[in-house]
C-alpha cells in the first residue's frame, strides 16, 4: 500500500521515526527543528509512545540514553546550539554503546546566529564534537521523502551497530514541503537484537563483528553501565591499557569494518566526466539542476550525492572521480566536508571548494559559474 503526502521534511522525519519503531522522544524545541518535536508530541501517544519536553538539551540526551537502555527506540531533534550542549552525553552514548537517533536541522552558526536560515556548519561537530576517538554514522537527506526513509535507516543502523546515529539535515530540508510517497513495501525495520539470558552473559563482549546484543532493564539482566573504560561485564577498569585499547578499537572497528555496508552515495554522469561536483543535503538539488542543464550543452560534468557523510564513503568517491580532472565540493559552510574530500582526492584530482553561508541555498547558476571557472583554468 502507498500513501501520498504534501508535508515538510521535519514532519516526514517524525513519521519516519514512528514507522521505524521509535516510541520515545525527549527534546528541547529549537528552530528550525521544532516541527519534529511538535509532530511527535502529537503522534507518539497515539501509538503508545512518550514525548517529554526537557529542561534543556543536556537532559534531553540523558533521557533518550535512559529510554534506550529501558528497551525503547529513542530519539531527539535539535539544531546547532542544542547539539553543542549534547556533546558530553553523546560521548557517553558512544562509550556505553547506546543506540539512538539525533536529528540536527542545521541553521546559521556559530552560536545562536540564524534561527530561520539554513546552513551545514555542524558536519564536523557530528564527526568530532565529543572528546576522544569514536566513529559516528551520519545521514544527510536531500528530499522530504528521503528524510522519511533516512530516518528509518538511522534507527536501523543505530540498532544494528549499537551506536548513536546523526541525521544531519538543514533548514531548507526541514521546512520544505513536497510530495512524499510512502510505500509500505519499502519499509524494512531492524528490531533490537536481545541477548539470551544466561549465567555467563557479557553485555560488552568482544564479539567478532564488534556489536554485542543489548540487554534492557527490566528483563532480568544485571548490567552496569559506565562512561569509564569498562571490561566486558561493564565494570570500570580504567588503569589497564589493554582494556581501554581493546574497547575503543572495537567501538571504532565495528563502524569502520562495515563501512561498505553503511556508506552510500548516489551519482550520475561520472563515467565520462571531466568535472565531478560533490555535495549532500539540500545544496545537492542545486548541483543536480546545474549538472542536468550543462550536460545538455555538451559539457562532461557529473555529480556525487553523499548520503552518508560519516563514515565517509571513501571507496565509492575515489572510484567515481577516477577519470575526472576536477572535483568541486559544494556545501553551506566555509569548508568542512571539503577537507575530508581534499584529503582523500588530492593525489588524484584538482579539488576545488564552493562554500556559501548566509542562509540561502547556492543557485544552479552559481554552480555553473564555478564549473566554468574551474574548467577555464
Amino acid at each position, binding site marked *: 500500500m502507498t500513501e*501520498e*503526502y*504534501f508535508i515538510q521534511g521535519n514532519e516526514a522525519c517524525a513519521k519516519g521515526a514512528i514507522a521505524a519503531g521509535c516510541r520515545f522522544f525527549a527534546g528541547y524545541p529549537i*528552530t528550525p527543528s521544532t516541527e519534529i518535536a511538535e509532530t511527535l508530541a502529537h503522534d507518539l501517544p497515539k501509538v503508545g509512545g512518550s514525548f517529554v519536553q526537557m529542561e534543556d538539551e543536556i537532559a534531553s540526551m540523558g533521557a533518550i540514553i535512559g529510554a534506550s537502555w529501558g528497551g525503547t527506540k529513542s530519539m531527539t531533534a535539535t539544531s546547532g546550539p542544542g547539539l553543542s550542549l549534547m556533546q558530553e552525553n553523546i560521548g557517553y552514548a558512544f562509550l556505553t554503546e547506546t543506540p539512538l537517533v539525533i536529528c540536527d536541522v542545521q541553521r546559521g552558526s556559530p552560536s545562536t546566529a540564524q*534561527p*530561520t*536560515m539554513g546552513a551545514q556548519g555542524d558536519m564536523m561537530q557530528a564527526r568530532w564534537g565529543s572528546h576522544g576517538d569514536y566513529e559516528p554514522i551520519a545521514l544527510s537527506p536531500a528530499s522530504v521523502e528521503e528524510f522519511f526513509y533516512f530516518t528509518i535507516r538511522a534507527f536501523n543502523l543505530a540498532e544494528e551497530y549499537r551506536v548513536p546515529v546523526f541525521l544531519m539535515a538543514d533548514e*531548507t530540508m526541514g*521546512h*520544505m*514541503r*513536497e*510530495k512524499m510517497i510512502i510505500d509500505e513495501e519499502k519499509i524494512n525495520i531492524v528490531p533490537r537484537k536481545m541477548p539470551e539470558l544466561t549465567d555467563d552473559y557479557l553485555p560488552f563482549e568482544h564479539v567478532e563483528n564488534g556489536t554485542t546484543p543489548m540487554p534492557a532493564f527490566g528483563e532480568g539482566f544485571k548490567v552496569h553501565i559506565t562512561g569509564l573504560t569498562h571490561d566486558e561485564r561493564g565494570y570500570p577498569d580504567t588503569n589497564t591499557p589493554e582494556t581501554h585499547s581493546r574497547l575503543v578499537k572495537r567501538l571504532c572497528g565495528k563502524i569502520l569494518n562495515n563501512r561498505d555496508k553503511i556508506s552510500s552515495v548516489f551519482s550520475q554522469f561520472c563515467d565520462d566526466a571531466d568535472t565531478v561536483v560533490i555535495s549532500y543535503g*539540500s545544496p545537492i*538539488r*542545486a548541483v*543536480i*539542476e546545474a549538472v*542536468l542543464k550543462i550536460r545538455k550543452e555538451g559539457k562532461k560534468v557529473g555529480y556525487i550525492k553523499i548520503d552518508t557523510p560519516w563514515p565517509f564513503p571513501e571507496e565509492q568517491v575515489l572510484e567515481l572521480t577516477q577519470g575526472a580532472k576536477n572535483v568541486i565540493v559544494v556545501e553551506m559552510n566555509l569548508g568542512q566536508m571539503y577537507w575530508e574530500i581534499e584529503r582523500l582526492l588530492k593525489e588524484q584530482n584538482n579539488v576545488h571548494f564552493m562554500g556559501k553561508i548566509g542562509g*540561502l*541555498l547556492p*543557485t*544552479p*547558476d552559481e554552480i555553473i559559474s564555478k564549473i566554468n571557472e574551474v574548467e577555464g583554468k
Partner: protein
Amino acid sequence: MRTEIRICGFGGQGIILAGIILGKAASLFDGNEAVQTQSYGPEARGGASKCEVVIDNKLIEYPKVQNPDILIAMSNEALLKYIDDLKDEGTLIVDPGTTDVDEVRDFIDEHNIKVYEAPATQTAMEDIGLKIVANIVMVGAITKISKVISKEAVIKAVEDSVPKGTEEKNIAAFEAGYALIE
C-alpha cells in the same frame, strides 16, 4: 514547464498557508510536482514573510524560486523588496489596500509586467466579514490568473488545509477571490 510563484507580505497574513495550499493542490490533487519553501524571521507576527512555490510537470530538483513568473505582494515593503526579481513579461498581483503599485510603475513598464489588482483584504472584510481570510481570497485570485493549478484541486487543498469548522468561510473566500478577476 516550470512555474515559479512567490507570495510575500507580513508575518500573520497567512502567506505561508497560501503557498502550502497552492503546492498541495498542484502536487496531490492535480498530479503535478510542487515544492513549497518559506523564509521568515524569528518573530511570530509582523516581520517580513515570504513563501515560494515551484510547480512543474516533471520532478523538481532546485526547490527555490530564482526569478518568479508570478509575484504576489500583500505588503508595500514586500512589493518594493521583491519586484526586481520578477521575470520579464511576468505577472504581478497586488492587494491595492496594502500596496501602492505606482511606486514600481517604472519597473512594470520597462519589463512588460502584467499587473492585476486583487483587493483581497477589502473583499475578506466586506464579503466574508473576516479580515483573516484575505490570504484565501488571494489564493482564489492567483488560481484564476495563473492557470497552472485547477480550480477543483485548489478547493480540495483549501478544505484539506484550513482548521476544521472553517471550511465553508474559506471556500466562500476562495470563490470571492476567484470572482475578483475577469
